[in-house]
């Protein structure tokens, strides 16, 4: 495996080990998404259309991802550990990619529970929705990890992350809801793929400037 891939694997495995040992991010995300779905049940009045429920699925996904992203660089920022990673000879974008893959893992793990629960509470989840969720995950983790690194450099980290992330997540939500509810989902899936490609490359290229002076 090329050096870059080794670095990314080492960093991602480090994050997964940290999570298995501390067990603080994933359980929180699981409970959070489930409680959101329960809240959504009570939010939809009887007359409400099933489409509204589909839309709310995306609200649950974005905010669960936000919860996970708040923890993304917590270990690094707590003891100034980002310096240790920045000092290492590896390309700084490997830190971003490793962290994004770890975040993707947590988000997918939460969705493995959330989607069946959603189907149970609100009605079947079709193939296109799952495809849209998969594509959206890539965009959320790519942009979200970069934004988490930016927010962690500031003082009011927990406040800053949602403010920075939500405007950027609007296109993802539009693409996701479109793919779920619209009759021709192809356009929306293509749009999500475009968003992922565009912002993943942009995040990959600019991470270096976020963690160094």
């Amino acid at each position, binding site marked *: 495996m090329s050096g870059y891939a080794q670095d990314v694997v080492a960093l991602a495995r480090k994050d997964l080990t940290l999570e298995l040992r501390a067990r603080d991010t994933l359980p929180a995300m699981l409970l959070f998404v489930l409680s959101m779905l329960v809240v959504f049940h009570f939010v939809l009045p009887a007359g409400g259309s099933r489409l509204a429920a589909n839309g709310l699925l995306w609200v649950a996904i974005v905010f669960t991802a936000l919860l996970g992203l708040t923890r993304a660089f917590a270990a690094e920022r707590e003891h100034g550990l980002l310096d240790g990673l920045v000092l290492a000879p590896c390309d700084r974008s490997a830190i971003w990619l490793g962290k994004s893959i770890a975040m993707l893992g947590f988000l997918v793990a939460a969705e493995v529970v959330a989607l069946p629960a959603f189907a149970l509470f609100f009605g079947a989840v079709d193939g296109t929705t799952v495809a849209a969720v998969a594509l959206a995950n890539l965009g959320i983790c790519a942009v979200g990890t970069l934004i988490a690194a930016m927010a962690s450099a500031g003082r009011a980290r927990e*406040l800053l992350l949602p403010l920075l992330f939500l405007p950027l997540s609007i296109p993802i939500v539009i693409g996701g809801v479109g793919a779920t509810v619209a009759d021709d989902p192809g356009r929306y899936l293509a749009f999500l793929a475009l968003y992922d490609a565009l*912002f993943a490359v942009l995040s990959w290229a600019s991470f270096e400037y976020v963690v160094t*002076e």
Partner: protein
Amino acid sequence: MSTWSRNSALSASALLLLVGGIALAFYWAPEDADQGFSQKIFYIHVPVALTAYAFFAWGAWKALRHLWTRGERYDLESYTAIHMGVIFGLLTLATGSIWAKISWGIWWSWGQRQLVLFLILFLFYCAYFMLRFSTDVGPARANLSAVYAVFGIVLLPVSFLAIRLAEGFLHPVLFERDGPQMTGEMFVAFCVCLAGVLALAAALYANELTGKRIDARLRELREALA
């Protein structure tokens, strides 16, 4: 060309162009066939919107220059450009909703793609200032702001495409005017107004930038004397 002479030249040309443009728009250009007098807002709403776009693009360009060369001046220029972009964005939202009120009797309509885009950009760039105010003055803040400004200019077309796609499942009542069928006179009045607003924007930008540079130099002076 000293700062004073440049800024005042810009301000003078802005004044001339604006007064001329508005006069042309109100007294020379004919009224629009179907919209009548209310179409006169067009001469301020569209130039202000275009100026806001120009400022966001200018801010992103200066941010890229900062990331490439780490020149000291680019961060302030990007910051000022985005600050002006938000002000003109607010003006676009204000004049846009007044135009919606006249034309369709409602202050806000999700069918107005450009207004929806400005709303998203407004949210995005307010977070830009939150980011700047939560980091200390220094290279780290400049880098973060630059990266975020570049994200902004990429988000702009992506959001516009997303808004059009959203119409597929939101089915808003579409109020898109089918582009400006403007007579010759209207177009001339529009161009003069546009030039006036751009000159005004440049004057305000130059002034604010000078102020920020003086502020930075004062900080250096204060600490040199400390």
